[in-house]
């Protein structure tokens, strides 16, 4: 069975609430069947609006959304057959767990014994068997969350939408729920569209991530590519940590360019610079810059230690390097006894490939 790569398709979708500001601008997005795609972005970036348009609670101002090649703009939410997990679970407080799960089946006029079977299966999937007769208020946050997931899946929808479902949980629970949702997705192969503002969540769970900002998808790619190869400075800044230098291109060849900084010059990988004189922001991941590099590196600089922060598994060192006082280094704790004292000068090196010359901020 070949997978439909355009199972969900946003085609030139615009959305405006007040006729003045576009919340979503010219969105084109294809989601393939069985994919776990995450819409990631700061609040107000339009990601939840996209989800609501897909669920049918908002209508696109322009453009069309297709589900399995059928336009769905004129289909009301209850006929779309899309499961949804809401931010605060939206469990029906006056119904038991069983009744909550049976609700989507009952409105579809499923037989009683069939309902029992499906509810049973869904509950065991989220390891909540035996909780059928509890009321939602008697469950912990994590349990409520699982019930909400089970309820969104119990009627075998083609697509499940999740709107920041883990936002209300504490850190440990959130992490274990991330794995659990990921495993459920892997087991039943449902298409999941997940909305979050937590990049860690997005990176661990998704097949692909769409980074939203200002109503636009800034980058759509797999988590590793997103982290390793951000295409613009917003993505570089938003995903993970980032050291930046602002400067001007003085020389450019195919895969290396020279960037003149305020007080120095570095070699970088030209991503979105084309010619001499372009302004640029050079982005380097903290773990790509090494202290006292043994191998030969394209860039070798000396920085002054401004701050040392102990993080358990690693130590973060803030340097004053080439005029950037916020240059962060991550040093694994296993590494040898370095002389990390305030005010000390240390050598730092990185390859030009890891220094990505992006659009200026």
């Amino acid at each position, binding site marked *: 069975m070949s997978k439909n790569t355009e199972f969900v398709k946003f085609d030139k979708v615009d959305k405006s609430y007040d006729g003045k500001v576009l919340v979503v601008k010219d969105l084109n997005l294809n989601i393939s069947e069985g994919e776990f795609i995450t819409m990631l972005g700061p609040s107000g970036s339009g990601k939840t609006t996209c989800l609501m348009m897909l*669920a*049918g*609670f908002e209508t696109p101002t322009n453009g069309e959304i297709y589900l399995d090649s059928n336009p769905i703009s004129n289909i*009301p*939410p*209850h*006929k*779309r*057959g*899309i*499961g*949804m997990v*809401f*931010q*605060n679970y*939206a*469990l*029906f*407080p*006056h119904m038991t767990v069983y009744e909550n799960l049976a*609700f*989507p089946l009952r*409105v*579809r006029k499923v037989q009683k014994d069939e309902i029992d079977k499906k509810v049973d299966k869904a509950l065991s999937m989220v390891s909540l068997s035996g909780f059928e007769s509890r009321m939602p208020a008697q469950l912990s946050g994590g349990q409520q969350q699982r019930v909400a997931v089970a*309820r*969104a899946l119990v*009627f075998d929808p083609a697509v499940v*939408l999740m709107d920041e479902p883990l936002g209300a949980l504490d850190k440990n629970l959130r992490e274990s729920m991330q794995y659990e949702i990921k495993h459920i997705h892997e087991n039943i192969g449902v298409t999941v569209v997940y909305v979050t503002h937590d990049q860690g969540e997005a990176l661990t769970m998704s097949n692909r991530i769409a980074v939203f900002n200002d109503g636009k998808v800034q980058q759509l790619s797999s988590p590793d590519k997103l982290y390793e190869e951000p295409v613009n400075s917003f993505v570089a800044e938003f995903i993970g940590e980032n050291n930046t230098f602002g400067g001007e291109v003085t020389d450019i060849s195919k895969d290396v360019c020279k960037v003149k900084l305020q007080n120095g010059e570095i070699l970088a990988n030209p991503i979105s610079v084309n010619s001499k004189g372009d302004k640029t922001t050079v982005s380097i991941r903290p773990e790509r810059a090494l202290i006292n590099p043994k191998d030969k590196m394209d860039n070798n600089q000396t920085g002054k230690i401004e701050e040392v922060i102990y993080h358990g598994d690693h130590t973060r060192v803030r340097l004053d390097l080439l005029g950037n006082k916020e240059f962060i280094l991550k040093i694994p704790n296993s590494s040898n006894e370095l002389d990390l004292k305030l005010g000390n000068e240390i050598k730092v090196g990185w390859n030009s490939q890891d220094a990505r010359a992006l659009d200026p901020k």
Partner: protein
Amino acid sequence: MSSETKQILTTDGIPLEISLKKAERKNKIKAFLLVAPLLLFLIITYIFPIGEMFTRSIDDKMITNMLPKTFKSMETWDGKELPPEEVFASFLSDFKILVEKKEHGKLAQRLNKEKNGFNTITKKLFRQVKRNKIDETQGIKEQIMKVHKRWRNVEYWQAIKRTAPPYTSAKYLKAMDMYLNEDNKITQVSEDRRIHRILWLRTVEVAFFVTVFCFLMGYPIAHLLATLPMKYSNLLMICVLLPFWTSLLVRTASWMILLQQQGVVNDFFVMIGLVADDNRPEMMYNKVGTYVAMTQILLPFMVLPLYSVMKTISPSLMRAGKSLGGTPFVAFWKVYFPLTIPGIGAGCLLVFILAIGYYITPALVGGASGTLISNQIAYHMKTTLDWSFASAMGLMLLGGVLVIYWLYNKLVGVDNIKLG
């Protein structure tokens, strides 16, 4: 360690329980003193008057104190034939004292309530006594019987005997259009005189339908209030509350202006040709007027509890219902509606209880067919001055409300009420 449960001691060696009580006593006293004024206020303004009302409604001591000797001598009388001489004698001596105190009128009034016809014969007896026509040395029975033929009728003496007990349930029976007959049996009054039962039924009926109308109108309003964006819902809230801030009398009067036969609504109907000018419908001084005005006046009492409940229902619940495949109606009926039941209960109970005791509005716009039991109470308070009867009806109303409250608690549960 021993397995026995040991008394736990504080570090100072005092048993923990005692120490805890001591520590909390101060707070308890403080809390009691804080509510004490309210308690006192409640006792003075609520419990005491209700107790007073109750005693008044069953009190029949006035006549007991007026005719002490008569009742004493009547104790041995079997009440089948005319009483013996000594009853007449003691009645006369009681009566003379009353004449001296000029209280014979009160007696006549009270006896007349028990049986029609006492007014005349008491007046006649008074004249005889005043002129000293009755010779106490001779047969008093004969002389009194000569005053008027009704004094010869055993039924009138039986009526006097019936008033002997210091307490009576007559007022309550009267409110139900019943009375105790000569044989002390509860009897219905003749059909053409049964007015109270109609009023009770009408009161319940009006209260019920006003509650239904308020619910039908209030539910959508409350829903709008709870879901509209702030700037519109505030305006709507003011529209709901504006009548609240207007005097009840003014509101009722404005309904009179609107509903009367030459009023605004009728003018409008004539203008659009709905009714002929010479055939304007009566919308006031009947039940229609009562329904319209009371529904409008009581509407906020339905809207506010509903609103406060609806405000707490997350809009994502309806969305969840729809996204799970429920049509908007199913999502409303299965998800939203059950969650508003506490508000519905509170609103309906509030409106019903207020409506059942409503007074000014039905008095002004109700006319003959739109008056309620409270108008009857007011009538007896102000016009006939039969306060004990008014008290009895008031207490019956209170009892009815308590029964409704009890029923509601059985059916829905009072803990489910949410007033805000």
